[in-house]
């Protein structure tokens, strides 16, 4: 029991728990409360009356830090820390060996140095936000069908449902497909998808990014695009600054760090640049990465030519409008917030029995 709940209980706002494992005398130590606030790795199924960050790890694969302000995934290689090091390392070297020399010349290089730091900070900030923020996790068990047969999922819920989409002259039979998530027990909105790595359904799911160890979805897609753009600009500015320094030096062997940073930036600029270009063309045709790979039946997005999908109800016909609709789409509210206080017995944090029903299968074969 946290101090918050102890206080609420003292004022009679919540009943005393009668949990057989803990007993009504159970009191969580202040050390555990502080520790759980700093990092919550495992969900607390017995304390289903807390903030979301205490309960969400029980039904998803997220672990939370600083009271649910940041998250990452458990049981996964923390590759995002390596990526962060790749972003931080050149800035440290540039600050130690290059910045001072360029800043103190009277040849007007100060704006270039300033812009490098500005875009580097932007890159770092939006990388952390892409990696640690809510991608658009949808709540669980909201569309529980029935109590019968241990919450059995009806056969109709296994169908892909086609509903009418906005009809246009180009596509008078426009339709939108939606599916029921048998894991999360919700009718997923269009473009949402279940990520088995995160263990949750994500709104406008683009892809699960191995490098940021998080999904890229509706609530962090703009951060992801900003991160890619600022990373490319940072690398270009690093190339520019180091090139100027090398050009102004009589013997390039005197500036080995500038040469190293130049090579480093030339090598590292390509991956985010290709990824950014790829996402610009994808958004221009109103496709998410997931939809595109599904449409082309490909597993390698980078080497696949991007073509508009047929009968795409989201395609407005305008490249710029398409791009704006995906990149500028509002983040929307956090629908399964780690910071929110929830009530005891909240169904969103309950693990309902599995989806298989042999009785139903047997009956459907008759």
């Amino acid at each position, binding site marked *: 029991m946290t101090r918050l709940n102890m206080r609420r209980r003292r004022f009679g706002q919540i009943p005393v728990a009668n949990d057989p494992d803990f007993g009504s005398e159970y009191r969580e130590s202040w050390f555990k409360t502080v520790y759980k606030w700093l990092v919550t790795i495992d969900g607390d199924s017995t304390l289903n009356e807390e903030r979301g960050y205490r309960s969400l790890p029980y039904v998803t694969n997220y672990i939370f830090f600083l009271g649910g302000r940041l998250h990452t995934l458990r049981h996964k290689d923390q590759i995002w820390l390596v990526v962060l090091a790749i972003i931080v390392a050149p800035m440290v070297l540039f600050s130690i060996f290059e910045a001072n020399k360029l800043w103190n010349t009277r040849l007007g290089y100060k704006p270039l140095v300033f812009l490098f730091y500005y875009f580097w900070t932007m890159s770092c900030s939006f990388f952390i936000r892409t990696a640690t923020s809510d991608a658009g996790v949808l709540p669980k068990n909201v569309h529980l069908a029935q109590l019968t047969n241990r919450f059995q999922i009806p056969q109709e819920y296994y169908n892909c449902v086609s*509903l009418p989409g906005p009809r246009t002259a180009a596509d008078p039979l426009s339709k939108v497909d939606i599916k029921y998530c048998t894991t999360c027990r919700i009718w997923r909105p269009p473009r949402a998808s279940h990520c088995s790595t995160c263990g949750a359904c994500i709104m406008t799911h683009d892809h699960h990014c191995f490098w940021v160890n998080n999904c890229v979805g509706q609530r962090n897609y703009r951060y992801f695009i900003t991160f890619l753009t600022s990373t490319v600009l940072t690398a270009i500015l690093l190339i520019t600054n180091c090139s100027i320094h090398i050009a102004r030096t009589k013997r390039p062997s005197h500036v080995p760090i500038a040469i190293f940073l130049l090579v480093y930036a030339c090598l590292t600029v390509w991956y985010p640049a290709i990824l950014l270009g790829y996402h610009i063309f994808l958004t221009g045709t109103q496709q998410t990465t997931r939809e595109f790979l599904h449409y082309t039946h490909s597993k390698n997005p980078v080497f696949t030519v991007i073509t508009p999908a047929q009968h795409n109800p989201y395609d407005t016909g305008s490249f710029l409008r398409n791009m704006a609709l995906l990149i500028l789409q509002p983040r929307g509210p956090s629908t399964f917030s780690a910071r929110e206080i929830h009530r005891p017995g909240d169904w969103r944090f309950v693990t309902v029995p599995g989806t298989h029903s042999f009785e139903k299968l047997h009956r459907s074969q008759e």
Partner: protein
Amino acid sequence: MYNVLNSSTKASDSPNNSLADDTAGQPVQGPLFFNYHEFAETFYIDIQSDGQFHEHDEDHCIYMTHFPNIYVPQDSQEFNTTRIVRIPRRFDTTLETLCFSTCLPGTEPAAFINPEDAQRFVARGIYDNGQLFGRSSTSPLSQYLSQYEFEQIITPINEILSQTTATFTWYNLIDLLLDILTLGVWHLISRYLVADPLLRLETYVAEVNELPLLRDNKIKIISPRRSGYLSVCYKTHSKSYD
């Protein structure tokens, strides 16, 4: 029993069977809208029978139009005495903003209609812990609200959501620009400076719940925030068979 889904097009299953074959000279029609939350059940207790579960043919199935109240704990009394009627999202007007169905359950273009019941909820079977269900898509909500009243309640919800979730608004563009230019600092401070626009919806739902139409009939709208804006849920009192 007249069944719209069987008559011309079926709005579910595979994408292809939702379109009529134009090569056979039939008029081409897209899928029709229906409440995708509902489902049919053939193994239930007939309300006028011996109280035992029996298998029925498909023409005599019952339709699940109300669901367990997942907004209260399972061990609470309210869980046993209330049910939820779910209003689905629809996508035929726009895909850019959130929009919920303005059709009272049972009046959708592809709803299952039982002419004997005349758009009224008539209990025919018992299922799911003693709950009563009918043989059409008409839900218990039809006992309390007319189509007109229902539409009057849902339309403002759609309007508020349309205004607050639109992409091309000055607020959204300025919010995005400030967030990028301030390197993310705006995101941290904006929550203290700008009120959540979706709070308007919370206020509206609270006001609607105070209307005599809902209060006197002991029905209540659950804020869409609680369902992650996946559906609008009406809480009705349970009509269970004792």
